[in-house]
């Protein structure tokens, strides 16, 4: 017996439908636009794009240099562009002595074009509040990952509407790039 009818939908559902219907009537929206945009973010924009660029950098030293020198252009080479960081991308490298974390303490800036829509934890106060001063202890306590040497830590706060800086993880053991050491894990 249709149990999904037993609970009324939350107010926000009606509110959003009201807003949608008004915008459709005013010629500013169509349900087709909603469907197509959402489909793109669900299927085509995601962390596989960033992974593609990083994997290329692990095996192609010349590409790695271009990626670090001009992230926007190097990502465009692989057809990676779009809304959410695409106007200017700065790529920074994790090294054996410097590990980078990226946080937006003021809102939720995130490099959509290489990582997709941000996960809930990235946008949550629990991540945004302590990250700028407790990077090392936060990372080692909150995530199950290989411990990271306490030798050096950087925290980066992208504050601009126009650029984002994903941190490129180090190459895994066995990849061919001689300048990158074996890695423990990727940045979020």
């Amino acid at each position, binding site marked *: 017996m249709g149990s999904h009818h037993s609970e*009324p*939908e939350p107010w*926000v*559902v*009606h509110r*959003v*439908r*009201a*807003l949608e*219907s*008004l915008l459709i009537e*005013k*010629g*500013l*929206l*169509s*349900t*087709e*636009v*909603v469907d*197509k*945009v*959402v489909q*793109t*973010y669900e299927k085509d924009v995601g962390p596989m794009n960033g992974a593609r660029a990083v994997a290329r950098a692990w095996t192609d030293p010349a590409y790695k240099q271009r990626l670090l020198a001009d992230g926007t252009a190097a990502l465009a080479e692989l057809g990676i*562009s*779009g*809304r*959410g960081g695409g*106007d*200017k991308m*700065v790529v920074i490298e994790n090294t054996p002595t410097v590990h980078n974390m990226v*946080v937006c*303490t*003021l*809102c939720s800036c995130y490099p959509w074009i290489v990582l997709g*829509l941000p*996960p*809930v*934890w990235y*946008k949550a*106060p*629990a*991540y945004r*509040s302590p990250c*700028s*001063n*407790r990077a090392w202890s*936060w990372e080692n306590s*909150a*995530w199950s990952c290989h411990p990271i040497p*306490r030798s*050096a*830590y*950087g*925290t980066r706060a992208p504050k*601009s*509407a*126009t*650029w984002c800086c994903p941190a490129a993880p180090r190459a895994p053991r066995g990849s061919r790039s001689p300048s990158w050491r074996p890695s423990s894990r990727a940045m979020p």
Partner: protein
Amino acid sequence: MNGVHDLGGRHGFGPIQREANEPAFHAEWEKAVLVMNLIGMVKRIYNIDEFRHAIERMGQQRYLDTSYYEHWLASVETLLVEKSVIKREELEARTNHFEANPTEPLPDRKDPELLARVMNVVRKGMAEKSEPDPAPRFKPGDAVITRNWQPRGHTRLPGYARGHRGRIHLFHGVYILPDAHAHGRGRCPEPLYSVSFESGELWGDAAEPKARVHIDLWESYLQPAEKT
């Protein structure tokens, strides 16, 4: 604005909650909110700085009690009303209508031109390229002190980074100043830098050894540091 959105260094929000195999959206209504906000910017009804500031002024208590897409919804509603695209009363009346008629479908409308325009922005972005002027006042390595100002409006200078010494790390280019752009005061392009701070400068005895914080800051947030 010294609001609760300025979260850097706050205590007490508990552990990070990670969701395994997290979906892109958690509810259908979130999808519509994302797209309506995109349309607000594609149609240049408002800009991203106005959008962020409308979240900041949604109400301090409510900000902490609501989700990311509820923040977006609050901002989109506020701006559509303030920009006279919709009226507050018609939004309330329509909400009551859908509450009473939850199965009523949305109006049908096709708009290939709008679809093409929005998809173009999704794929290519809304380029706000670096501008040629003004020339940067600082260069990498320069010592600077952030201003200790307390603006009631929008700013991208976090509270925890005011009145502190740092060094210019990178010059990013010249970009729209959010502090002006969020308040209808034009683009006011300014040099944008990555500024590097020693963690101890910002966090005192809570700082972690050898940590540094890099923050993107516009030139008017910075003053030259006196030589010591």
